[in-house]
């Protein structure tokens, strides 16, 4: 954990920065091997085999993590995955217009989401159902977007969870502004209510100008912002090497803030590293970039056909790194949970999904008036006239009248 002093007092012994600015060939290579884990670069605390690796740097962020916490994280991930699968199925049944699956990214989302304090703010992209869940957003509240009955509908300020953002990269600047606001309001520092912001985006998003500008702004204003990039290896059909030569976390090097790659399928590592990053930000050492190295196990969305662009081998290899399985194995081996517990969670997940399903099937269509509401915060006579005219016209049909 670095302190503000460490950031602002020069130390001796650094080599020529000009040399540092020339990446080594292996750094270049690393970027080209988009589907390799990155070896030593990767922060991992729980191996795919469920083995707990010690980490002097990050273990201090997990001192409160006992078997109960682990069971909680396991449960979170199982529930979120089950809900995700249910939504995927409901899309196939025509109940949702589209679904954006998070399958495979449960650890990245639950781990980072659980690292947040209530006072922290989160800016999601459109796949962060797991983060939404950790922020206390009811899964049913997400459905409207995908059933096309609304455009985002939860208590944004209450949950401190911003609306989903579909235009790639936009939310990164919005989050930078929000975090600047936290700073300007004096919410950064050693006080217990100190705040930070986290912002989610994908590997593809890193190419967008807005993401760069978010990096520039956050760095220049020392904004308490954690950039959380879920590198799920694909931007629809494009692998990460279409976006970058170097591993994405290294992008931070050019801006002067830390970048780190974490095993995105390791919920403990995601929790610890995000806690560290948030803490850095809260204390005024932000921003920080986290690249969560993970994999999109399903299609980009339910309208996508990944067989056109990637091999099933890849999927098989990643199955072995499943984020839930490794926690299950670890809990079993360490005696943190037994089969009964797992069965219970599964049953709860099934109930969770069934409720979601019932809710979804019963969702009403919005009334036509909704079309005209909330365009502005104050009324607009022009729009009022359009509404009146349309509703009168529409009523004509309802009354069985002529068009």
């Amino acid at each position, binding site marked *: 954990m670095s302190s503000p002093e460490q950031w602002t007092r020069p130390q001796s012994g650094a080599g020529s920065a000009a040399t540092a600015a020339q990446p080594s060939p292996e750094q270049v290579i690393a970027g080209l091997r988009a589907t390799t884990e990155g070896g030593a670069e990767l922060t991992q605390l729980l191996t795919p085999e469920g083995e707990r690796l010690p980490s002097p740097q990050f273990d201090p962020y997990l001192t409160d993590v006992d078997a109960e916490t682990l069971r909680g994280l396991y449960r979170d991930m199982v529930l979120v995955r089950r809900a995700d699968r249910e939504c995927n199925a409901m899309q196939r049944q025509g109940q949702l*217009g*589209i679904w954006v699956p998070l399958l495979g990214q449960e650890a990245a989302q639950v781990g980072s989401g659980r690292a947040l304090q209530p006072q922290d703010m989160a800016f999601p992209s*459109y796949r962060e159902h797991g983060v939404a869940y950790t922020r206390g957003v009811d899964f049913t509240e997400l459905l*409207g*977007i*995908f*059933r*096309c*009955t*609304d*455009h985002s509908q939860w208590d944004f300020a209450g949950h401190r969870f911003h609306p989903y953002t*579909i*235009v*790639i*990269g936009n939310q990164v600047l919005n989050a930078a502004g929000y975090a600047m606001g936290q700073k300007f309001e004096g919410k950064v520092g050693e006080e217990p209510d100190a705040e930070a912001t986290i912002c989610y985006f994908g590997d*593809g*998003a890193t*190419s*967008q*100008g*807005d993401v760069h500008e978010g990096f520039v702004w956050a760095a220049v204003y020392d904004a308490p912002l954690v950039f959380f990039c879920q590198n799920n290896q694909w*931007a*629809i*059909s*494009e692998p990460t090497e*279409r*976006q970058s030569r170097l591993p994405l976390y290294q992008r931070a090097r050019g801006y002067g803030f830390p970048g780190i790659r974490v095993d995105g399928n390791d919920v403990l590592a995601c929790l610890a590293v995000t806690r560290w990053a948030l803490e850095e930000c809260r204390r005024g050492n932000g921003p920080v970039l986290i690249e969560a190295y993970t994999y999109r196990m399903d299609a980009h969305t339910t*309208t*996508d*056909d990944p067989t*056109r*662009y990637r091999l099933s081998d890849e999927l098989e290899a990643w199955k072995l790194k499943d984020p839930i399985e490794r926690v299950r194995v670890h809990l079993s081996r360490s005696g943190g949970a037994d089969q009964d517990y797992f069965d219970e969670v599964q049953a709860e997940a099934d109930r969770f999904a069934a409720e979601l399903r019932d809710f979804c099937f019963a969702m009403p*269509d*919005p009334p*036509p008036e*909704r*079309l*005209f509401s909330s*365009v502005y915060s104050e009324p607009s006579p*022009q*729009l009022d006239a*359009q*509404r009146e005219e*349309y509703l009168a*016209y*529409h009523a004509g*049909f309802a009354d069985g009248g002529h*068009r």
Partner: protein
Amino acid sequence: MAAPVTSAKPVTETHTETQATVQKLTIGKALNAGLRAAMEADDKVIMMGEDVGKLGGVFRITDGLQKDFGEHRVLDTPLAESGIIGTAVGLAVRGFRPVCEIQFEGFIFPGFDQISSQLAKLHYRTQGEVKVPVVIRVPFGGGIGAVEHHSESPESLFSHIAGLRVVSCSNPVDAYWMIQQAIRCDDPVLFFEPKRLYHSGALKAPVDTTATPDPLFASRTVRQGTAATVVAYGPSVPVCLDAASAAAEEGRSLEVIDLRTLSPLDLEPVFESVRRTGRLIAVSEAQSESSITSEIAARVQQECFYSLEAPVLRVTGFDTPYPPAKLEEHYLPDLDRVLHAVDRALEW
């Protein structure tokens, strides 16, 4: 370099003996065939965009092109629209003829600056010395039950920017020819594609690749009539044609004009028609305020002042953001709303 696209000469020949010159195609397949023909005719033609390669684009309009022409002619670009358009401008300056795909119209905005500051103005800025023959293909419009940003109609914005040409096709034959003509045009062309019609089997039509296409920058009367004129473009054209059929059954004869070129407009056929019918209904999915339909109304009321027996009426999207898709049936001009407007115009 390229022959003037306003000429009526066919811009491609069938390329193999074995291939039939007439095929029944959807709009989507016709665009694909048109792009293929353009790439065969000129090896400076390249495709650029997100997922246009292996995936063939999310709508499959570039399907098979990367396989056949290689990764250097069909580029899966990084995910950034300013980058797509900005590099296309540079490639065009170098002598290429880039065809950019914007995945959905709602994602053209990060590229707005490059479009308005460079693409639209380089030719004027340099008194024609620098040509930027870039085509930007934009799937647009609603009615596909999609989430936000996937159903908008931003074409009017581009029609307000001088230096750009804006066109839209509404049927497979036009799709096949217009895309090739746009690519051959030395001006930048924003090519708006009616996404919900891409794969419409009902609109499938025989496309004769040896035919002589109409000029690109001309409107076309697609149905003759006498009682009122309806002008539309892109996805609204089939709606208006259906409305005209329905009206015919009720004994009212509607003339329907497919604008095809949205900027600069070719309004002569509209003026001529309105002088006969005395009534005009302009239809578009876009918001009405400061739009192409506003422009049509403004110009028609001036040019046909003494012919109009009713004001020009507009049937458009409302002045709201595009609503959640469960409400889009209310937002989009449909047969009933068009006929309602016709009624009002006739009763004026």
